[in-house]
């Protein structure tokens, strides 16, 4: 049985007179202990997906339709009290910027203990013991003293370790990490990612890693979703997507990686920029930037098809491999 199964999930934002679609019928699955990457430019709908899974969209955003089956229950239909018991307990979240995630006026200890006591019947002393164990797991020196400290007394890297420790407090089934290292110093980004990977593997926790960095995705995850303008345009095993991307957008992303460029050569960038949610083009949303664009791309939204080991939403998937496409047909 899969841990998480998202079906045709749509998220909309209520504007002054109308609504705009931020997530357009996305579907994906996650097995127990599986690590999934969600990549895309900012504004593609990655973070919104993360918050929708937690049912924590802030106004004016709301889930319009679809299902989010988590451990056999639909999160979309779930009453708030039951959902609250899942948040931080079965499903934990790591936010982007540790400098603003922790409450500045509460001690680390208070913020850890309250999380434990919200979900389990424990005494404060018992909760503190668990907190210390978890702080040790994320390699925080002298964890007993940290409990008394306030967030501003700690560095950004240290704070993000604490946020990871809080995510692990109740041994969740799934951790959603939304760009967990973007706000950190480059030198410690790798450390934090390594720690997260190690902990997910050893605790067999499912991970949804939201990032714009394909390099990170290739190291951390087993499967990848590529998002563009609120849609999943390509999905599959991370190795396949990195080595043999099918969607022109994914290909563009990979070609733009510095590793793909020889010294002295210019970085290959995708021309243009992502459309804003209020002005998504008709047909295929990528069509204005696509080098393989054909007439029907402007009128008809592409279906998701299985092609060369990945699922991809493109009318022109077989543009390069006509032979392969025929193979499948036959």
């Amino acid at each position: 049985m899969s841990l998480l199964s998202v079906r045709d999930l749509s998220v909309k934002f209520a504007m002054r007179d109308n609504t705009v679609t931020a997530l357009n019928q996305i579907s994906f699955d996650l097995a127990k202990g599986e690590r999934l990457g969600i990549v895309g430019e900012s504004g593609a709908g990655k973070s919104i997906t993360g918050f929708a899974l937690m049912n924590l969209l802030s106004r004016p955003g709301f889930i319009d339709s679809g299902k989010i089956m988590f451990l056999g229950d639909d999160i979309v239909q779930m009453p708030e009290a039951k959902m609250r018991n899942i948040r931080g307990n079965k499903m934990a979240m790591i936010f982007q910027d540790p400098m603003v995630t922790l409450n500045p006026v509460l001690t680390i200890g208070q913020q850890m203990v309250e999380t434990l006591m919200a979900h389990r019947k424990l005494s404060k002393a018992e909760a503190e013991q668990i907190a210390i164990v978890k702080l040790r797991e994320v390699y925080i020196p002298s964890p007993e003293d940290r409990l008394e400290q306030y967030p501003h007394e700690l560095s950004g890297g240290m704070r993000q370790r604490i946020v990871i420790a809080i995510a692990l407090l109740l041994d969740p089934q799934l951790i959603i990490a939304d760009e967990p290292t973007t706000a950190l110093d480059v030198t410690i980004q790798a450390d934090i990612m390594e720690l997260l990977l190690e902990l997910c593997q050893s605790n067999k926790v499912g991970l949804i890693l939201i990032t714009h960095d394909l390099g990170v995705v290739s190291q951390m995850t087993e499967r990848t979703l590529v998002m563009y303008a609120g849609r999943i345009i390509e999905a599959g095993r991370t190795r396949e997507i990195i080595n043999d991307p099918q969607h022109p957008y994914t290909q563009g992303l990979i070609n733009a990686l510095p590793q793909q460029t020889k010294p002295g050569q210019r970085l290959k960038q995708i021309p243009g920029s992502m459309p804003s949610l209020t002005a998504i083009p008709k047909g295929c949303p990528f069509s204005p930037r696509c080098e393989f664009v054909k007439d029907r791309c402007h009128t008809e939204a592409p279906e998701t098809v299985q092609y060369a080991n990945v699922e991809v939403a493109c009318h022109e998937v077989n543009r390069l491999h006509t032979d392969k496409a025929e193979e499948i047909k036959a």
Partner: protein
Amino acid sequence: MFAYLVKRVFQAIAVMFVISLIGFAIQDNLGDPLRELVGQSVSEEVRQELRDELGLNDSFLTQYLRFAGNALQGDLGTSYFFKEPALDVILKKLPATMELVLGATIIIIGLSIPVGVYTAIYPNTILSRIVMGVSIIGISIPVFLTAILMIFVFSVEYGWFPSYGRGEIVHVFGPWETNFATVDGWMHILLPSVALASIMLPLFVRLIRAEMMEVLQSEYVKYAKAKGIRPWRIYFVHALKNTLLPVITVGGVQIGTMVAYTILTETVFQWPGMGFMFLEAVNRVDTPLIVAYLIVVGFIFVVTNTIVDLIYGLVNPTVNLARMGA
């Protein structure tokens, strides 16, 4: 911590020094002490002698030092009208004013926090809209007009509450006589306290609401929700403390305004406090009493501001008092 305290106290002393200079300058320029002492019939010779005797011909600095030295010993001169030490006159009036301020403060704190928090959590309910509408009307009515309106309605029209004075008061100790010991005392202090609170209360409701709404949008509140924390704990533990930090600072500033408003309230209700006394002293050109009032009020401002700053430092963990002292 200690270094910060010392620094803050030094600053307070500096401000008091400036206030005493102003006080002395007023003393020096306003009214002629000789006329108060001997009248106009005395010859110029005797006047000069008296001037020398009183030290009125000494240099400005000598006179100021004498003034400051006396002030430090609690001698702020003698009131022309009451023929009593000015400080004694004021201290007798101080409790009445303080009880009025206390009454208003209780109303403000007791109402503004729950109302502000409620309107921030449920900004779109009918009740919240009514509160916000009333609050903008509230900040648009000057204190003295609220006071007059209340007298007109509750004293003149209905006769429910007395319109002037402190009523029956009970002696506690020293110059302190309290309104809070008898029913009659309570009846007398109610309208003035409400009037004094009337402009500050809506101001604080709006401030707390605005701060709270901002805090509720913050990342750490979202994160607390993502941890599965119950709403009441998010509101009152995570959000309220962060909301009240800036409110404390504003509150410190508003204490000064409140003392100014006591002059208005006391005038309308003929409340026998410092403010009422001050206006009378102005009309009588009772210079020592005017100067003494200035210095006592300045002292109250400086002390409360210092205390509010220290409380802010103690409540806010991100303020490192030890480092600020350096």
